[in-house]
């Protein structure tokens, strides 16, 4: 909705600037998105008459003009224009003007002659017109007045961004009603009066029917004869232009004008083209041809509301008129329609057709069905005043179930309690009355429930007995008691909602009216009484903890979209039968059509993006849900499973003048997981070689606790990496958050510092290459006796100095007792047991 302030000023005095008015509207909930100053830049441009014009002595194309700007004194201006002659009235930019074209006018000399301004072309003023020379104004133009005024640019356009509930403000009258309250002025609405001068009765000429009363609550029509089609008068065209609507012809323009003025969309039919002289608001028939005025044929789906004549649909009601009955130069008789259509139905149809018009927008928000006849009268009046038609007698008005006025009961206490304010009865009633509500005092007519409530609340004034009696139904006695007690807040009122306000139905709506008119800035700022315990869930705390640990371990948290695609599954080499391919499909995707089932795809995409931007050291993690359907096709909400994924690539240490430039490897990724688990108190897990769709088959480790898989760590399969455009080695890990929570040690056990010294023994052995170090550590722990404390693998060697199928492993084994200092012999004995067992189990040789 946009409207010029001039249009508003037709009906109300506005004694503030357009910007101030916009601010007042916005702060009352009628949001103005933008104010366009049509005359911006024309502040120092006035009309001036060329009093004298002579050739510039030193130029063959310039002239020296003496301009009469109405101030008595002549002003000298040099111009290069060739179309100006003495006596012309032209727009003159005075010194200091800052024109819409960007030119700034200063005092100056042109070839030595003083020039105190500039004569303007249409282009320089950014107005329409011949730009080959100076814009010549009509000869009767007054001199010395602002050019903006003469050019009709002394206007401001308010662009409203109206909320869905305020259909009434989609009209000049609605905005005037609001402005009247906000500016505290009395509006002067035009007198709407029609002279029915056509002789014929409308009802004799056209029949109006409503076959779909659920979609059309009222259908009113007037018939106009002797129609003289032509352009609208300029004032009307200007008004429409200000509202952003193109002028077409007087009949269509008037229907549009009335729509903007009153908010009631209208439609004009060529009477002669209406077959059977009947207009019926009915549901379309499935497959029915709809020939709309954009000359396209649409097939009806069967539930659109159409306006049909005896033969065919003559338009999609409220959305688009029909082709055949469109107003044309041949039109002599017109049927004007003003109807109230069902908002939801119009919304469905306009969405389906993809057409959102000024009319459909108003119907979607609900029109005032009481006002259809007023709109018809207003349109007929305007056309009649233009001499464009004669008006038949009467309105054909089908209104099967006239809407009764909405009444809302309230007490000022209710309103104040909701707002946290302390407005008096008078303050509240004054606002509501100014907005058009009728208020009546119904204190004595309250129903029993409210009365009991009233009296119960009043009980503190009367003692406990009052409540008992109140509940016994002796309300009248207590009404008198209350009345005499002066407890004013218990007076109940009934507000009759004005017919244009379809958004007000309950007391809470009234409270908003009070708040917005007095201003939200007047509402006090308080804090809720009482208190509660603030908290997070266990999972939330756990997730926060993981994030903090991983950040401390040098990983950056990433956040990526939850969408994925089959192509991504292919790139990840997810097997065809995997659950990870059973993704939730989106009916209307933006790009990727599936919800992700893993976080690996997006983390690899992020790594690839970083790499393409030459960020070589990338360390990322993400915690986010993935989605698994319970059934396909989807019948219920999918399972949402919170997952963790991490990724490292590039240098182990940041690039620097004295830093190691080695790249990360599998064990860096594994170390991150181990440290994470240690900090989360996930203990006593095992690690074994495993398989994962996206990982290197020889560099995949599975962290397990019992049957639960805690995490998978590995090097990304080179083929997978390559499909994401990554040519480097890249390591990832993934885990399931709920599983981690489940496997966290229930109690944190603090271990005291040792009182007695430890003894260590180093064990260096040669074993076959495929023996896993983890297995050897397990055996060491098992045979190391009661005082075994820990085992640490500190060296791994393969190479020339030993046979090719062997590797050398070196462990430090620590023995310690919490009760006494161990003797060397005890450690030696345990060490011997360990050595014997690794020899026996792994065929290990002791290295010298």
């Amino acid at each position, binding site marked *: 909705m946009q409207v010029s302030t001039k249009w508003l000023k037709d009906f109300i005095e506005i004694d503030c600037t357009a910007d101030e008015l916009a601010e007042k509207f*916005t702060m*009352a*909930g009628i*949001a103005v998105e933008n104010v366009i100053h049509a005359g911006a830049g024309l502040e120092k441009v006035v009309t001036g008459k060329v009093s004298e014009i002579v050739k510039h002595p030193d130029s063959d194309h310039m002239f020296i003009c003496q301009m009469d700007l109405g101030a008595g004194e002549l002003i000298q201006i040099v111009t290069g224009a060739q179309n100006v002659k003495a006596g012309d009235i032209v727009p003159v930019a005075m010194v200091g003007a800052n024109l819409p074209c960007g030119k700034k006018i200063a005092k100056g000399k042109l070839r030595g002659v003083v020039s105190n301004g500039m004569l303007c072309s249409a282009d320089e003023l950014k107005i329409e017109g011949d730009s080959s020379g100076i814009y010549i104004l009509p000869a009767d133009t007054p001199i010395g007045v602002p050019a903006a005024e003469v050019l009709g640019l002394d206007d401001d356009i308010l662009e409203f961004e109206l909320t*869905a509930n305020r259909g009434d403000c989609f009209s000049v009258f609605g905005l005037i009603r609001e402005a009247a309250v906000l500016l505290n002025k009395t509006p002067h609405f035009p007198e709407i009066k029609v002279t029915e001068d056509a002789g014929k009765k409308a009802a004799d000429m056209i029949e109006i029917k409503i076959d779909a009363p659920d979609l059309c609550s009222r259908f009113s029509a007037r018939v106009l004869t002797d129609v003289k089609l032509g352009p609208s008068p300029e004032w009307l065209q200007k008004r429409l232009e200000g509202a952003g609507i193109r002028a077409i012809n007087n009949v269509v323009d008037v229907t549009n004008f009335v729509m903007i003025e009153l908010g009631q969309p209208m439609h004009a039919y060529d009477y002669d083209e209406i077959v059977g002289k009947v207009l019926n608001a009915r549901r379309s028939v499935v497959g029915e041809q709809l020939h709309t005025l954009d000359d396209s044929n649409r097939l009806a789906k069967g539930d659109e509301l159409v306006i049909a004549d005896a033969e065919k649909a003559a338009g999609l009601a409220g959305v688009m008129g029909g082709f055949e009955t469109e107003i044309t130069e041949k039109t002599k008789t017109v049927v004007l329609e003003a109807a109230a259509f069902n908002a939801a139905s119009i919304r469905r149809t306009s969405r389906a057709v993809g057409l959102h018009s000024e009319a459909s927008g108003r119907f*979607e928000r609900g029109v005032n069905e009481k006002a259809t006849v007023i709109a018809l009268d207003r349109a007929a009046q305007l056309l009649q005043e233009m001499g464009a038609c004669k008006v038949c007698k009467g309105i054909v008005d089908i209104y099967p179930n006239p809407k009764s006025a909405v009444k809302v009961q309230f007490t000022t206490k209710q309103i104040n*309690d*909701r*707002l*946290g*304010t302390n407005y008096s009865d008078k303050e509240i009633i004054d606002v509501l009355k100014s907005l058009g509500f009728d208020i009546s005092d119904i204190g004595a007519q309250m129903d029993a429930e409210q009365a009991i409530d009233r009296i119960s609340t009043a009980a503190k004034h009367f003692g406990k007995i009052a409540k008992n009696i109140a509940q016994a139904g002796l309300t009248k006695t207590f009404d008198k008691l209350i009345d005499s007690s002066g407890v004013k807040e218990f007076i109940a009122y009934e507000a009759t909602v004005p017919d244009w306000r379809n958004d007000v139905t*309950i007391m*809470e709506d009234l*409270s*908003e009216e009070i*708040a917005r008119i007095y201003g*939200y*800035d007047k*509402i*006090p*700022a*308080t*804090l*809720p*009484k*009482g208190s*509660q*315990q*603030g*908290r997070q*869930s266990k999972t*939330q705390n756990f997730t*926060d903890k993981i994030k903090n640990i991983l*950040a401390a371990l*040098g990983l950056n*948290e990433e*956040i*990526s*979209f*939850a969408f994925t695609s089959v192509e991504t599954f292919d790139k990840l080499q997810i097997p065809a039968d995997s659950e990870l391919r059973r993704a*939730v*499909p*989106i*009916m*209307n995707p*933006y790009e990727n059509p599936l*919800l992700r089932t893993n976080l690996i795809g997006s983390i690899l995409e*992020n790594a690839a*993006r*970083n790499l393409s931007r030459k*960020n070589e*050291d990338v*360390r990322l993690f993400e915690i986010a*849900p993935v*989605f698994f359907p319970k059934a396909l096709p*989807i019948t219920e*909400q999918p399972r949402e499973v919170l997952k963790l994924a991490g990724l490292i690539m590039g240098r182990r240490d940041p*690039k*620097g003048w004295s*830093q190691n430039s080695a790249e990360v490897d599998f064990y860096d990724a594994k170390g991150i997981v181990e440290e994470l688990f240690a900090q989360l108190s996930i203990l006593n897990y095992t690690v074994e070689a495993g398989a994962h769709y996206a990982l290197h088959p020889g560099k995949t480790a599975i962290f397990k606790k019992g049957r639960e898989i805690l995490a998978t760590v590995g090097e990304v399969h080179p083929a997978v990496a390559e499909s994401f455009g990554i040519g480097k080695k890249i390591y990832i890990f993934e885990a399931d958050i709920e599983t981690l929570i489940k496997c966290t040690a229930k109690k944190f056990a603090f271990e005291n510092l040792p009182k007695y010294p430890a003894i260590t023994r180093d064990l260096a052995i040669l074993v076959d290459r495929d023996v896993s170090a983890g297995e050897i550590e397990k055996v060491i722990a098992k045979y190391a006796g009661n005082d075994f404390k820990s085992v640490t693998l500190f060296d791994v060697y393969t190479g020339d100095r030993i046979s090719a199928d062997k590797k050398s492993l070196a462990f430090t084994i620590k023995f310690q007792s919490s009760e006494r200092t161990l003797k060397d012999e005890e450690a030696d004995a345990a060490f011997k047991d360990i050595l014997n067992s690794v020899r026996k189990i792994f065929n290990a040789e002791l290295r010298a």
Partner: protein
Amino acid sequence: MINYFATKMERQIQQLRESAATMISAASDLKELDNVRVKILGKKGDLTGLLRGMSQLSAEERPKIGKIANEARAQIEQLIADKNAELKAKDLQNKLASEKIDVTLPGRKIHCGHLHPLTLTLNRVKEIFIQMGYSVEEGPEVETDYFNFEALNLPKDHPARDTQDSFYITNEILLRTQTSPVQARTMQKNPPNTPIRMIAPGRVYRRDDYDASHAPMFTQIEGLVIDKGITFADLKGTLDFFCKQFFGENTQIRLRPSFFPFTEPSTEIDVSCPICHGKGDCKVCHGSGWLEILGAGEVHPDVLKMSGYDSNAVSGFAFGMGVERLTMIKYAIDDLRLFFENDVRFLNQF
């Protein structure tokens, strides 16, 4: 004779003392000084050698010369000790001088991880509300039409649905367009009229074009307070407190009436620009001095009723805000896409 020896010895001691002082003072390093010490005070040193002549002295003179000799020894020892300290200090000084490094070389870098800026904002918001007694609730990201719309007083064909273009899974299941469904879920899991103070942070989805200010997925925080006598003024006070905590004590808020189907009265809340403090010409607030950050209002009675609460017994307020928006304002970030590109040069700054 005797007197002659004593006098000679006294003189020799005096000479020794003087030559010792010269040698000590001339010693250029600790080793040389030690040589001097050995030469004079050592077992075979000059002083010892001199004192061997003591036997030739008379009994009366011996203690006298002995005293002189001891004094001389003490003096020489003191000189050596002083010189020793001096040389040590010099040595240390030399050592330190030789150890000088270029302190302007950069320090050794550490791979530090960073939480995502959206998480930092979320954590701060959670902290502020948890200290005010709010619990942090969650709900599914794939929601039913009922919880996402209908339970919030947004029936099918409601025009307000237009502003939230949804990703549909089926006609009845969609990616939630707001965190508001957690309101209804929280109310419905409680016995009717149970007081509530909650926030619900989470990802939401709208079918918007992906550009500098829109993304198909973003983060919202919903808030809901329900109790006896919760007023619109309480809403204002709570969010005023929140904004001052989040953006700084000098922050002002401005409430503009608005419309949401699930609240009545409804408001949009602007915060005074924390970058320019309303002094204009600012790329964040474009000179207006105000930034819209919140939608809020008193909970609509229909919303309470639909979730089993009695609107005559309790009332409440609700609010919703965008985490991206808060973060962009706080750090003057002008392109939303930076959050989802996950460029480590961006992430490393937070």
